């Protein structure tokens, strides 16, 4: 007898839980030639607000972990993704915009990106922080601190690589993230949620919303609790984001809609991506006291 098909309900990942949008809305994800694949939660500004609350709550815990521990957890995320890399590649190719070969390449690059930043967690401080040369009987040193909750909006394509490329450098220093996944293919992000959930990352450090950027962009930009934004936007959206973010003086880092290929560039893995969301604290201390 033929088995009944068991299909997965795609859900957003917020606070370590898999949720539907509070609005209960969904939108269809279609494959090539318009064939229906599944319904994706259409998250709202209220979902964004709720995600910010949980991200802030767990943030202090995440930031107080040892950098070594954060590195181990990110490395484990890499392991989880590697083990399910074929599933991720199939998800990327699901909508038919990419060949399965390109999708596999994207997954490999994405996992490498996670491992790259996992390595940096207990090393960036040595490179970015320093003792400053001053003339006087003082020590003067600068150390870094995470800035808080950061909003991320991923590119539509490459959906997985851009999401990871914007999220991981932000969280590796102890920030937490509320991210909006690609609108055109959110399915890899939904799988990513499942991997985040099994990677020892405390629930709420990375929150992945799905939906349309035009519905939540203004909330991301204006929400005063978000201390930074790491966004992939086009020109018009960029203007909205910058105008609204200026009200609460956010750290804002905009990656204009690049060609897909640019995301695969080695330049994308960079210490400066970590530095963008750090605050520097400089301390004077008397010598010998």
């Amino acid at each position: 007898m033929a088995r009944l098909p068991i299909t997965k309900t795609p859900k957003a990942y917020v606070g370590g839980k898999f949720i539907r949008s509070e609005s209960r809305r969904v939108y269809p994800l279609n494959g090539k030639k318009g064939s229906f694949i599944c319904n994706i939660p259409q998250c709202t500004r209220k979902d964004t607000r709720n995600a910010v609350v949980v991200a802030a709550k767990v943030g202090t815990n995440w930031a107080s972990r040892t950098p070594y521990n954060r590195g181990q957890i990110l490395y484990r995320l890499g392991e989880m993704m590697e083990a399910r890399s074929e599933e991720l590649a199939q998800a990327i190719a699901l909508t038919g915009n990419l060949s399965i070969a390109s999708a596999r390449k994207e997954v490999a690059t994405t996992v490498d990106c996670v491992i790259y930043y996992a390595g940096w967690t207990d090393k960036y401080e040595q490179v970015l922080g320093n003792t400053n040369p001053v003339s006087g009987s003082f020590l003067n040193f600068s150390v870094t601190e995470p800035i808080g909750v950061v909003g991320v909006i991923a590119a539509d394509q490459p959906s997985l690589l851009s999401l990871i490329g914007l999220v991981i450098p932000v969280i590796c220093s102890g920030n937490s993230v509320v991210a909006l996944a690609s609108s055109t293919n959110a399915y890899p992000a939904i799988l990513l949620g499942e991997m985040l959930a099994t990677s020892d990352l405390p629930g709420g450090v990375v929150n992945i919303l799905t939906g349309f950027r035009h519905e939540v962009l203004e909330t991301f930009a204006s929400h005063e609790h978000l201390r930074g934004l790491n966004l992939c936007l086009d020109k018009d959206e960029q203007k909205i984001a910058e105008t609204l973010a200026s009200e609460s003086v956010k750290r804002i880092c905009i990656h204009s809609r690049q060609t897909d290929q640019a995301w695969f560039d080695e330049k994308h893995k960079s210490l400066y991506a970590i530095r963008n969301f750090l605050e520097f604290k400089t301390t004077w201390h008397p010598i010998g006291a």
Partner: protein
Amino acid sequence: MPPVALNKSPLKRLLDEVGPVDQVAIEERVAKFTTRSIKKSSKVWGLNLVVSMLDLTTLEGKDTSGKVESLCRKAIRPDEFVVTPTVAAVCVYPAMVTHARRCLGDAKIKVASVATGFPSGQFPLRTRLQEVKQAVRDGADEIDMVIQRGAFLTGDLQRIQNEIAATAEACGEARLKVILEVSELETYDNIRAASFLAMAVLRPGDFIKTSTGKTSGNATLANNQVILEAIRDFYLETGTPIAIKPAGGIKNSKQALQFLIAVKETLGDAWLSPERYRFGASSLLNDLLMQLRKQQQGVYQAPWKFSDAFSGY
């Protein structure tokens, strides 16, 4: 014919007299309250009403005169940007009553004091009454007393009623709030029974309060609803309006509005006033202000802009 029980316990007799609570129906009913959609101007109206119904509370062993003073300032002028009503009262321990009275100056804000061996109530009646009298002498306008839950559960109902009556007498002009501590009463039936027990000796305008806020169980929509319905039934029977104060665990605006919906739909507009309904809370006020500022300014606010000891980042 079933045999007639001749020697029923006092508690059983009371339960029979006031009737049972349909647990499933109550929980279904309150679940519906959470589905109402209140937006924009009606939301602002509701939030302001909640502010005016607040008993802004600090009941900690580490309370200092400084903390009470800042609480009083907050009570008088809750927010620097949004114009709101003042809160209804500040609620403190008896030792802080004089200080709170002084800090409030001539503002029309009541000073409420917990008394009678709060939160356990396990003290001799004589000292409990002394506490009440002293608090009233020090300037308390309202007294929050606790009942002895142990006495209730063992069926010593007369004693509870006598103690409430004695405390009411000791209050004099001050209004009395009787804390049932619903989480320790175990069942909805008991909550309803205890409400009737208290209402029989309360004066019009006195309060029933759900909880001390010091136990794990707090005010919920369901136990609030049980008491609202008891108050309704008592009012229809005797014409005496009794007020109610849910306390503990009401931390955000959304919850508070749901409590107001329960009041509106059970007791009507007459109870939508600080005279008849209060919220006992400490962190609720900042959330109310946060939502009011959101309505005013159009953007979600950060918690560090309010006077919270904010533990996240």
